[in-house]
């Protein structure tokens, strides 16, 4: 609690962001209200959107096929707007585990998972998960047997990716809503598994 109210100078990038934003407002390119509305919209989206998609795919095989064939269109079916970008959904199976990164910057399926966690944008994660994915997954507590193939997806251009986690055993009679409750952000990035407990 002692951190509250403590003065800390802005970092280089924070200062650049404030300067640029103030300039854009001053020049009339955008208004303060527009900036606030976009920020509020971004903050209002969270991983529960992706969880809804996953739970539907787990309970509806036909939906799952549509989702894997065209992620953006399948999200629209659930009323989720996936603007201008193309979503590729990659499916975990007992033989294949998928994990997502953007080694160049921090491309992330914000429309389904909200704002990315800080570690996703860190140089550590971005440089290492592509080179030693098993070691990085282990640091998240995810240890996979050697015979499970790991597929890393580097979102370097116009696609965005989401992992469809493996449905945990013992959830056969669960409702879609209850299933959505166990689908975590990290399981849709691929650094964790969906678990019942």
């Amino acid at each position: 609690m002692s951190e509250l109210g403590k003065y800390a100078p802005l970092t280089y990038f924070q200062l650049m962001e404030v300067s640029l934003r103030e300039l854009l407002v001053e020049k009339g390119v955008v208004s303060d209200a527009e900036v606030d509305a976009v920020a509020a919209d971004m903050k209002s989206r969270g991983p529960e959107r992706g969880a809804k998609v996953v739970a539907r795919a787990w309970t509806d095989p036909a939906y799952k096929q549509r989702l894997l064939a065209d992620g953006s269109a399948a999200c629209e079916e659930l009323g989720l707007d996936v603007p201008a970008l193309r979503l590729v959904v990659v499916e975990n199976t007992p033989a294949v585990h998928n994990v997502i990164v953007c080694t160049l910057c921090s491309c992330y399926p914000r429309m389904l998972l909200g704002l990315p966690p800080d570690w996703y944008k860190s140089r550590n994660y971005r440089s290492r998960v592509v080179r030693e994915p098993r070691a990085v997954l282990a640091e998240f507590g995810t240890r996979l047997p050697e015979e499970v193939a790991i597929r890393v997806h580097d979102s370097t251009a116009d696609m965005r990716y989401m992992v469809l986690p493996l449905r945990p055993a013992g959830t056969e009679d669960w409702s879609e809503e209850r299933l959505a409750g166990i689908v975590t952000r990290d399981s849709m990035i691929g650094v964790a598994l969906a678990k019942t407990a």
Partner: protein
Amino acid sequence: MAAEALAARFKPGDRVRVMKAYPLGHIRTPYYIRGCSGVIERICGAFPNPEELAQMRSGLPAQPLYRVRFAQAEVWPDYRGGRDDTVDVEIFEHWLDKAAE
């Protein structure tokens, strides 16, 4: 997808090699994958060339974009992990050449 787009030269399953080039500018082909060969996993569509967009130009005609799948053991000589481990990277067509089978 942009209306003004080049037709895709490659199809899924084709073996391709990423150019080993180091031009300046806004390049979305990661360093670590340059010079590596892999297999076209899918055609993503055609998108304005980001290298041109970064120079405030139109980026048209749109460049075909592919997802290319590489074997990790070939990308990293000291890779420790399964032989079936892969990395998929999105690469624009002008960075790809046909590779020997």
